[in-house]
């Protein structure tokens, strides 16, 4: 497993974790730390908090990998869902929002030199960003508010000052379009 962890599928990796394979968890961390930490940081805007949450996420992965069912979705979705939920929970917890004020100072730029990071930016990030760029601005905005701020349709309508039904339509259309755009390349990501 240590030799060529990248050749092992995400599914097999999680199954190995479920069996208590610590190396599999380490491989899983190495494979997804950048994207998951990026996601958590994007939600929390605080490195310290984001690192705490990342640690929580992998402990949860370690303990709950047995719950992963590949018939119900991709391993990547399972990991990302845990990271996003944990981060949003932390965001909603009292005190987290107050730190949003100094988010600018905390924004990560330290690890730009990481080769894997560059590779990620050049592949998966590029595809998703390109797809998002093809969506109309108002659709893209609702999706990002829902995804990274954990807002509901009603909260988004209030935030943007738009009617609820308009927000619903935009979100639905945005998801449908995104699915069309990412459909063929989804397995590559």
């Amino acid at each position, binding site marked *: 497993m240590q030799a060529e962890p990248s050749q092992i599928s995400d599914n097999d990796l999680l199954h190995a974790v479920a069996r208590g394979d610590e190396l599999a968890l380490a491989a899983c961390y190495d494979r997804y730390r950048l994207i998951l930490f990026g996601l958590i940081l994007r939600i929390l805007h605080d490195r310290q908090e984001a690192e705490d949450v990342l640690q929580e996420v992998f402990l949860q992965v370690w303990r709950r990998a047995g719950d992963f069912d590949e018939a119900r979705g991709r391993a990547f979705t399972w990991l990302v869902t845990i990271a996003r939920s944990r981060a949003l929970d932390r965001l909603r917890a009292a005190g987290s929002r107050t730190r949003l004020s100094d988010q600018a100072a905390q924004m990560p730029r330290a690890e730009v030199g990481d080769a894997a990071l560059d590779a990620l930016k050049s592949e998966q990030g590029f595809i998703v960003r390109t797809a998002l760029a093809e969506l109309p601005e108002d659709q893209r905005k609702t999706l990002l508010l829902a995804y990274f701020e954990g807002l509901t349709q009603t909260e988004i309508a209030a935030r943007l000052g738009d009617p609820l039904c308009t927000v*619903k339509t935009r979100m639905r259309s945005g998801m449908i379009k995104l699915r069309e755009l990412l459909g063929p390349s989804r397995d590559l990501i």
Partner: protein
Amino acid sequence: MEHQDYQELLELHALDALDVSEARVLEAHLKTCTECRDELGQLRDTAGLLAHAADPAGPSPEVRSRILAGISADKQSQPVVSTARAIPLKSRAERNVWMIGLRLAAAIALVALLVGVIVLWRRDMKMRLEIAQLARQVNTQQRELVHDRDVLGRQRDALAILNSPNAKKMELAGTQTAQTARGTFVYDQKTGRAILMAEGLPATPTDKAYELWFIPKGHSPMAGRIFTVDASGHAMLPENMPPEAMANAVIAITLEPKKGSAVPTGAIYLSSPSS
């Protein structure tokens, strides 16, 4: 809501953007609709890709160490966990022990009960036997008592007759047939109450009985009572003297058929001297 209406909620649910009430309604539908469930799965995969919209970022290297240390600690605490898991097993084993114990106790209780029942039943039987025996004894004693009272009564009667100033005594002598036999016949000349005491008579054959006869002078014999003798040849018999026999009569004992005879048919065993 129609299936179509639920379908229109799936995109927003994939982003967890539905309001709570709508989300709850949809979740209820998802439990029964595999089509919507599959659709939602695909939409969640799409939504998950939005994570790539965030700039990837590298956490500090200590995070990796902390995670790996954390899971090692978690794994070391596994023995605790597995002990914790073993507790149900152990308690299941204990429960089994309890079950075995309970069954054993039940079996012992059953055996004890059966033994108890048998003991009680046997004791009951024994007591019944004892009671029956006692009842028989009481019966026997009662009969003996009755007999004794009878004998006593007869003896009292005999005494009363013997003590009576009107008593008349007649000696009976054994005949050729019963030479050792002898007897006494006493009667009250006023009341006619009489008593026969005999001894030395041969044991009574089973199909025979002795019969007492009064033979007044110039009359044919008058049948008196029939009787048997005990093993020693004794007999004591109360009797009522027929008025005809009071004056001057011969008393005789013959052996007759068991039910007695109207006229003497058998041999004479005892007889008063003819006057």
